[in-house]
């Protein structure tokens, strides 16, 4: 098979408009393009959906309201009413990831959530802002976060490093989960799709698999956005309510 049909070729970052400032490559890439597309689509959906506020919602308004209520419920369930302040952050993250994942499901479109640079940047924003929130809310008491309650002092030297590692593993697990799922799913689809022409008539078997997996991938695309949002909520909840 030719190299350009490699299953990993779809993740290649191609500069569309080369921009170079000093030694820093700031090119506008296909990844950046699809991020812009996702932002524009979310913006259009929300403004168009809310533009004509009918008592009986139209189609777009229904979708916009559903998205709003889904995230609002998520926050209410995990953080409670104090979490309402953080709605903009969580809603933005959720919609951005959801649209990034869903755009990636369209053949020949680029999936920007399949790059750890993108997912880690988002996870780092969550991690840093949650840490700042914890400090702003509790000041120096925030460090009690790392000391499990009811543990004898003799155990502290062992447990505090474990708690610290556990805390610092948050952005890693948050970003790796999203990126690895998207990367693995899209690679698998491409590999299986590569079998279809190679097997001739028997290619109908991998074709059936690809069809089924596409459905699964759409579910995963949604669930990953959901998991990212719910974990952000849980982290905010932890920072707000220290033990």
């Amino acid at each position: 098979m030719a190299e350009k049909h490699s299953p990993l070729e779809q993740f290649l970052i191609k500069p569309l408009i080369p921009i170079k400032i000093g030694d820093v490559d700031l090119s506008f890439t296909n990844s950046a393009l699809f991020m812009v597309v996702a932002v524009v689509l979310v913006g259009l959906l929300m403004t168009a959906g809310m533009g004509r506020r009918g008592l009986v919602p139209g189609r777009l308004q229904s979708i916009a309201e559903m998205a709003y209520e889904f995230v609002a419920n998520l926050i209410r369930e995990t953080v409670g009413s104090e979490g309402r302040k953080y709605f903009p952050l969580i809603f933005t993250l959720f919609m951005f990831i959801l649209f990034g994942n869903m755009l990636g499901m369209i053949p020949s479109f680029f999936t920007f959530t399949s790059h750890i640079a993108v997912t880690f940047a988002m996870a780092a924003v969550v991690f840093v802002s949650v840490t700042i929130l914890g400090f702003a809310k509790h000041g120096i008491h925030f460090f009690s976060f790392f000391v499990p309650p009811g543990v004898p002092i003799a155990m502290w030297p062992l447990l505090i490093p474990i708690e610290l590692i556990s805390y610092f593993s948050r952005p890693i697990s948050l970003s790796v989960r999203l990126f690895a799922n998207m990367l693995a799913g899209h690679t698998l689809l491409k590999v299986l799709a590569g079998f279809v022409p190679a097997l001739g008539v028997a290619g109908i078997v991998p074709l059936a698999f690809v069809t089924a997996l596409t459905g699964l991938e759409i579910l995963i695309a949604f669930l990953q956005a959901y998991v990212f949002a719910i974990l952000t909520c849980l982290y905010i909840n932890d920072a707000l309510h220290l033990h």
Partner: protein
Amino acid sequence: MSDKEKPSDLARLEARLKEAESRRPPAEAPGSERGKGLSFALRIGTELVAGIAVGVGIGWLLDRWLGTKPWLMIAFFVLGAAAGMMNVYRAVAGLGHQVGYKPKDRARGSGDGKKAD
């Protein structure tokens, strides 16, 4: 007679409506329950790996800084594995990601003299 029948008609209609309502799947379809389970499973998988990765990373950096190859990396690998397992345990036991081993409602204020608030 017909006057008396009317409320009974209404009552019967009410009963039928109630019955129809109860037959409808409860607001959240079981599908969403399955989605929640699957999303939970997706969450757990990486927790363990992330703990180990961060532990090894910290150990490696400290080793490079202090020139104690490879001992700190080994020590932090073990600590990281412990942290990963604890992450998984906490998530599965429904304790959230909060530090500590008590359910949330009991955890507050009973921190053995180490009250946060």
